[in-house]
């Protein structure tokens, strides 16, 4: 037996036995260099056998969704904790969710829920970096899980290997999430940004520098190149490199018919588009499915830049410091319930869940104790994540929080473990991670597998 890390899981809610988890064995620094734990090659080979995910979709619930009001309700907690929502059963033994998620309750056989997530940072940008990279900014910014995937898989065809769907890089008022992209791997592994409106209209911010140039007008390669060159000359030297990378990617996908078609949601049946809902998040989920169907390795769908929260021009998603219960009840949960259910159904019916890993989580949870504003604040000590698809055993509840949802009573599961599991299931084994110098010390969430 080989163990990575010191993670020790509890029994699962559906009665499967306690598993022993992979721990970091005795250090063998000669294998992959200092700082990257030694590897039992036989065990690594077995782990590699688990790799099933050709692609990954991360639904990034930016802002910090309340765990008590969604996937970890506490109906027996004191009134100042439990919140106003009733609980409903699901198809999974031991899993109740709030009444705000009726469609996902009916589909719990397609996913597993972790209720013992814990992070180290209680602010949005900092926790966002931890959530997307596994590490604090200290001051080095580690690569986003998608950037690791991007480097490992490389570019294949016209489409970039790592997409961000949403309105740019999530941020709060002071600053953005620094861990949004390539980090130590370099800007070459930054995500390619694409927006998607509630009507399924796709925007490519990189092309904003090209006046009037839309996918429908990209017919003439020579004209496009001329315009790209002209725009390039107008930029200062510092900006050209980064700009060129992004524009080469944009150019590639716009001039490749197959790539271009992957952005055209109108080729979907109306019933499919309807199923996801007429929301930006819903149509972005549909676009994510189309991209992984085309072979894109990693798609991060950002819940961001929508009018949900009471912040002008805000980008705070699930950051419900005021109107928490009203927003979840009136907007966030119905939108998420519909879109995620549609994604699961659609992926499942097309056989895409066989080789696509789907993960949904935010950067932290929200305070179990209801605030003086009848809402909930940031809470880093306990939150949830949802896992479905390639290599995941669905229908499980993993980890447990205390009676008030304040802390895990089982060993905490961290963003680093999340990233390591994503990598592992994507075929980026311990050897590859060590060679890339990423996810150091991370262990696999074995109960998911």
């Amino acid at each position, binding site marked *: 037996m080989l163990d990575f890390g010191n993670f020790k899981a509890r029994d699962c809610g559906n009665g499967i036995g306690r598993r022993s988890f992979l721990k970091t064995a005795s250090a063998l620094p000669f294998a992959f260099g200092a700082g990257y734990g030694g590897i039992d090659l036989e065990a690594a080979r077995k782990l590699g056998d688990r790799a099933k995910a050709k692609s990954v979709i991360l639904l990034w619930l930016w802002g910090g969704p309340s765990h008590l009001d969604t996937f970890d309700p506490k109906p027996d907690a004191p009134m100042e904790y439990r919140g106003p929502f009733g609980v409903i059963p699901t198809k999974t033994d031991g899993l109740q969710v709030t*009444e705000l998620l009726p469609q996902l309750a009916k589909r719990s056989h397609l996913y597993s829920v972790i209720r013992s997530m814990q992070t180290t940072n209680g602010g949005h940008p900092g926790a966002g970096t931890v959530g997307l990279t596994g590490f604090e900014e200290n001051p080095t910014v580690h690569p986003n899980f998608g950037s690791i995937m991007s480097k490992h898989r490389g570019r294949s065809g016209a489409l970039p290997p790592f997409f961000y769907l949403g309105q740019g890089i999530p941020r709060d008022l002071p600053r953005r999430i620094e861990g949004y992209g390539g980090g130590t791997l370099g800007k070459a592994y930054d995500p390619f940004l694409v927006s998607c409106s509630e009507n399924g209209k796709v925007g490519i911010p990189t092309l904003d520098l090209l006046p009037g140039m839309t996918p429908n007008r990209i017919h003439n390669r020579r004209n496009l190149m001329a315009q790209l060159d002209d725009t390039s000359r107008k930029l200062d030297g510092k900006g050209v490199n980064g700009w060129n990378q992004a524009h080469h990617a944009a150019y590639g996908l716009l001039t490749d018919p197959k790539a271009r078609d992957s952005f055209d949601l109108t080729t979907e049946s109306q019933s499919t588009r309807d199923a996801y809902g007429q929301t930006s998040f819903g149509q972005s989920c549909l676009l994510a499915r189309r991209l992984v169907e085309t072979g894109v390795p990693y798609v991060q769908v950002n819940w961001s830049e929508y*009018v949900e929260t009471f912040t002008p021009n805000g980008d705070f998603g699930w950051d419900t*410091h*005021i109107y928490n219960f009203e927003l979840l009840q009136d907007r966030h949960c119905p939108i998420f319930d519909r879109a995620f259910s549609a994604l699961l159904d659609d992926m499942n019916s097309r056989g895409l869940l066989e080789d696509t890993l789907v993960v949904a989580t935010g950067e932290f949870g929200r305070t179990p104790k209801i605030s003086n*504003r009848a809402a909930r604040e940031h809470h880093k000590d306990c939150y949830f994540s949802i896992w479905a698809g390639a290599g995941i055993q669905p229908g499980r509840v993993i980890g447990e929080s205390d009676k008030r949802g304040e802390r895990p009573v089982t060993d905490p599961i961290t963003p680093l473990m999340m990233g390591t599991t994503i990598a592992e299931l994507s075929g980026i084994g311990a050897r590859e991670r060590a060679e890339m110098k990423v996810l150091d010390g991370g262990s696999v969430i074995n109960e998911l597998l």
Partner: protein
Amino acid sequence: MSFYSFRRCCLFLAGLIIVGFSSAKTRLTTDGSNKRDPVFIDGGATLVYGIDENRDLIRLKQLDLDTLQSKPYYESANRHHVEVAFSRDGRYVSYTECTGNLTAQFVIKDLQEKKDYFVKHSGRGGTRSPAFAPDSSVVVYAFAEKGPQQLWSVDMEAKNKKQLTQCEGISNWPSFTPDGKTIIFSNTRENNYEIYSMDANGSNEKRLTENTIMDIRPVVSPNGKQIAFTSLRNGFYNVYVMNVDGTDVRQVTDSEERDDYPTWHPDGKRLALVSERKGKFDLYMVEVPSPGKITTKR
């Protein structure tokens, strides 16, 4: 029969074949954008509602029920406006307005005197769900100042603020009976939202619903005899009607997609509501089932 009357008749008949409702209904909008908080004004000729105008603005719009044409209620609005309410005489309007990062203000506008009044509270919480007393003496609303969200009242100049409830849990969605003597509202002290009634001064409280799933947004009918509300008691957001004492609960809509935000037409026979159909949110009008047709328990 005028053109518009003929059109309304056609829309009504067309609505009969729309699935997902227990009663006859009419579709009023077709844009599919997210909508909320409809309320009738002008004797039922106009429906005012909130809509996601774009990703940066929730705007109030008014729908002419003859032409089914919508236009902004406040042309120059550039901040979120939600949960609009009008006084019975049409003189006052109130709503919650987003004023900055996670902050909001409660506005009372005197349309006759062209004056705006703002309700002040300590803390950064947001006001909820204004409801005018029938005689326009006070407006009641929900606010969490020091913990549990309570019902409060102020006069039409936002003065004489009083806390009406001293409840545990979260109180929300006050609605007056036409005589002004009773307020219907929801509260969470019994683990989830249930509907209660109390005298307008906060006394003599009675519980009207009892189940493990939420009952929200109660609205008293124009004749004061019925309450429309939203409930998830059948597993999904649907609209129900019951007598004002909590008896005779009737299911108005029956869909796995969402039906919410019921509001009474002044004729007392129909409700306007927001329905999600095929992922799109639009306004519909639906007939209220006759009393005595009991379809679900309290």
